[in-house]
């Protein structure tokens, strides 16, 4: 892979890691939020729904700025984290947070589509067999949502690979430390003759997402088969 420089390789590796971790965090979070939106009788569901959708509606830079305000050392949450000695801003963890927030609307909506298909009687059956609400959630609802979770995961992972605006604000653009593929591409665009480098990174992004897409198709296909057979 000599068409990628060492910092490029670091960016690829970091991007893959950030997208993976973000997806792994967004999955349970999205599942719980979807559950609240679909099954619970909570008031103000519409408000929550809108809140989850914000990162889709607002430009990523704005989301990044809002996150920066909250999580920065002077922010509401950042102040606490600082006291606990947790550093977030300008670390790869910040990139993960940005990707989780940006990917969440896609995740939640996918899972909702899946959850709304589940026959409530199945959940009732589980309850009468002694499963608590939470037990039924994890042993019945969760496995039945699996295809929707896969779709949501795919979308979140893909979106994380391409996330730029929120990441650059929250995590900074520090080569080797927080520079993901989109940020590296940005750097290339600030360099004479950077196109070839940018192109190489785009290709890597595309290859990664293709691999993941195929992996997921295989997963979905296997699920369908095991469900039938």
């Amino acid at each position: 892979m000599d068409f990628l420089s060492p910092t490029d390789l670091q960016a690829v590796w970091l991007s893959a890691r950030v997208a993976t971790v973000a997806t792994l965090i967004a999955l349970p979070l999205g599942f719980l939020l979807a559950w609240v939106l679909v099954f619970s009788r909570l008031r103000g569901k519409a408000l929550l729904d809108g809140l989850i959708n914000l990162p889709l509606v607002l430009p990523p830079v704005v989301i990044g700025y809002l996150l920066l305000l909250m999580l920065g050392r002077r922010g509401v949450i950042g102040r606490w984290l600082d006291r606990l000695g947790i550093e977030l801003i300008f670390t790869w963890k910040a990139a993960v947070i940005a990707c989780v927030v940006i990917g969440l609307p896609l995740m939640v909506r996918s899972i909702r589509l899946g959850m709304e298909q589940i026959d409530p009687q199945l959940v009732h059956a589980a309850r009468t067999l002694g499963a608590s609400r939470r037990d039924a959630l994890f042993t019945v609802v969760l496995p039945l949502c699996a295809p929707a979770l896969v779709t949501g995961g795919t979308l979140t992972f893909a979106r994380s690979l391409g996330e730029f605006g929120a990441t650059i604000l929250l995590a900074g653009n520090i080569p080797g430390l927080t520079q993901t593929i989109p940020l590296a591409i940005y750097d290339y665009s600030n360099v004479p003759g950077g196109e070839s480098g940018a192109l190489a990174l785009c290709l890597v992004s595309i290859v990664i997402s293709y691999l993941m897409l195929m992996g997921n198709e295989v997963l979905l296909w296997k699920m369908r088969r095991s469900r039938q057979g």
Partner: protein
Amino acid sequence: MQLDVNLDKKLGDFSFTAQFSVTGQRIGVFGPSGSGKSTLGNLLTGFLSADNGRIELDGHCLFDSRRRTNLSPDKRRVAVVFQHAHLFPHLDVRRNLLYGQRRTPTKRRTLDLDAVAAALEITPLLERSVNQLSGGEKQRVALGRALLACPDLLILDEPLSALDRRLKEQIIPFLDRSLRRFEIPYLYVSHSLAEMRLLTDQVLHFGGGRLQVLTDAESLALERLGQDRDGYINHLQLSDPREVGSLLGYRWGRNELLLKVQEKPESGYFALSSKDILLFRKHPQALSARNLIPGTVTELMTHRGGVAVKLDCQGENLIAEVVREAAAELELTAGRTIYLAIKASAFRRLM
């Protein structure tokens, strides 16, 4: 089991009221569609909360509007088998069966998987995906799943109504056998009188959201004489088979009946429609029916379009139905002795 219920519930235009105490293992809930049978079930399992009232199961309070007690469904130990099996599609048969058992405190687990699977004859299916089961197999698994949770009460809400006649007949024996064997008290919800007669001792008869009466299936069946196209189904307990040519001779009280059946069960209940009994005033000769037994008329019940004849055949009771003209011609009156002709192929095994 002792169930004390006193409930009021309004659902839109529909209002449900029930107040009863029953003791027993095999309780039926009978009534037309929309009479509130499933509503009673939902109130008992806890998916609906009554507006007012109290539910006590074996002296244990499940719901009390005044004391604000309202156990959640998983705490009530009331299991349900629905019309559609609602098996968990992501689990195989074995894991479906174990779902409830795993959630039952160890000391309450009185049944084990192998025994239940054997009783329901689903042992060969244990490793299958539930999508590969037929309708009848699915219901048997659903029943097994509920049994293995060892509930204090099992609600069977029209568990057979989605199955065709053949499957129904196949599954009823499993139901009866396993419910008796594993001693799980149950409420059997249905609008089939035949199922009520086979599976229950007492019947809560609902109508229009109200408990009409606490009765039993036999009384209900007699009330409904002449309304069913298949006639009144006599249930005969037969035993001690012996081979008689190509037929089987079974003891029925002090009579012997010749049957043409596929298997040779040691003993059990057989169904005989009131319409499959031919009556003769005198002993006829050389006829194709293999059974010709004497009987005494004990009662005549005239109903729309026919006469039901209660007969005593050496101590065993039977109901035959004839048209009015026949009743007149045979000069049927209580106390008269007549002959009954029944074809060997008229019997059907019940369980």
